[in-house]
């Protein structure tokens, strides 16, 4: 039976790519997009940079609008799924589908208690609040030193704020490895950022708005503003009891399938690796890759080409542009393919130049497609 009515739940890049792909694959039925956001689909990438700094607005980050024949319903969260009846429930009433794309993404993880109104950065709403608080603050503590936390640190420092980053491990190491992680940290430190590595979890102090953190050794750090950048939580609550398999996210197969005529893509998913392991890959390119695979599977079933991760992510901070392809957290010393770390522009490969599993371009203008071609052939075949 061919599909006539596809409902896409979500309003970010995975949802948008799904719609795009439906039309590219000549699907000519109805497409309905249910987004809980107030604003049309936008890219979150600049939220930690220009939008947080106040130099860009929502107008600068909205993505090319969907064509008129797509029914985009903003402020319309999905509240429940009835797989048997093929209905998504919303506060505005039920929406019937014969093909469903789950792309509800994730929200910021929080550390604080119920009495605390914690600052996080995930949605445009979060960003507007944080931007105003940051403008009024002279000091900020950022809990979490991943890409997001360090990008917020970079933006805050550029605004002249006193910036401290707190994490359980040296920031960025588990993403970029110790060599590039160390390099970025040293630039951040030279820019005036204080980095505090603590042995255990932190507790947010102050309510309703946290103004400090307590480290595991009892040390108190204080600031005008505390930002939590401690990862994200998939938005799966609406799927409870639906029969959709949930395990730290919506479990999808290698075609991004969930159930008959139901697929999922983006940050909401966890992918089964066959050996029982489930992995999450909450990055922009993964959302795009998964959405494309999901639509192919929805329309063509087993014959569709499976999901192939492009394994690409990046960060921009402290004047450094870091692009990574391949496995995260490369171990040991890299082979320098071009430039040098000391001179500030380098192309680096791990574990060696002949069969790299990870390539990083640091302030080195190599297109990611070219970086991918440097990966060892087996990794490419796998990818």
């Amino acid at each position, binding site marked *: 039976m061919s599909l006539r009515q596809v409902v896409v739940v979500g309003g970010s890049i995975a949802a948008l790519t799904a719609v795009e792909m439906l039309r590219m694959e000549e699907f000519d039925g109805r497409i309905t997009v249910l987004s809980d956001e107030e604003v049309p689909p936008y*890219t979150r*990438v*600049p939220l930690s940079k220009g939008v947080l700094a106040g130099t860009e607005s929502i107008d600068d980050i909205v993505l*090319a609008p969907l064509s008129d024949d797509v029914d985009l319903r903003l402020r319309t969260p999905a509240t429940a799924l009835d797989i048997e009846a093929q209905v998504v429930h919303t506060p505005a009433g039920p929406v019937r589908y014969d093909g469903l794309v789950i792309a509800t993404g994730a929200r910021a993880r929080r550390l604080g208690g119920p009495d605390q109104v914690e600052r996080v950065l995930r949605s445009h709403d979060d960003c507007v609040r944080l931007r105003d608080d940051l403008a009024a603050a002279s000091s900020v503590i950022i809990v979490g030193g991943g890409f997001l936390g360090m990008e917020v640190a970079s933006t805050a420092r550029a605004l002249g704020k006193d910036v401290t980053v707190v994490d359980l491990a040296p920031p960025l190491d588990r993403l970029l490895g110790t060599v590039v992680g160390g390099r970025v940290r040293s630039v951040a430190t030279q820019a005036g950022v204080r980095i505090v590595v603590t042995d255990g979890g932190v507790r947010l102090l102050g309510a309703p708005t946290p103004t400090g953190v307590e480290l595991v050794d009892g040390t108190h750090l204080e600031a005008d503003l505390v930002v939590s950048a401690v990862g994200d939580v998939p938005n799966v609550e609406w799927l409870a009891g639906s029969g959709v398999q949930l395990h730290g996210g919506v479990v999808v197969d290698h075609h991004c399938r969930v159930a008959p005529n139901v697929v999922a893509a983006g940050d909401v998913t966890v992918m089964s690796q066959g050996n029982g392991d489930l992995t999450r890959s909450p990055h922009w390119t993964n959302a795009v890759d998964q959405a494309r695979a999901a639509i192919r599977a929805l329309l063509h079933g087993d014959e569709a080409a499976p999901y192939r991760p492009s394994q690409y992510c*990046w960060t921009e901070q402290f004047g450094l542009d870091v692009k990574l392809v391949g496995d995260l957290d490369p171990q040991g010393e890299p082979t320098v393919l071009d430039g040098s770390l000391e001179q500030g522009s380098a192309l680096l490969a791990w574990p060696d130049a002949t069969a790299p599993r990870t390539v990083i371009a640091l302030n080195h*203008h*190599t297109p990611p497609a070219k970086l991918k071609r440097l990966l060892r052939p087996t990794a490419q075949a796998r990818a």
Partner: protein
Amino acid sequence: MKIVADRDRCEGHGLCADTAPEVYELDDDAIVVLRHEVVPPELERKAEAGARVCPVAALRVEQLSVEA
């Protein structure tokens, strides 16, 4: 249809060129270059897809008026 590329915003992720190589390419500095002043009608859908996938929203789609 016309694509307007903001080369200052472009960070060289190349997703546009991956998605629609007939419309976009990257120059030696990995900055986007448009292959057509006006997008040929048969490439419009791909051009839009390439614009929409840009993570930094550096690509705008402009519909040319019928008179133009």
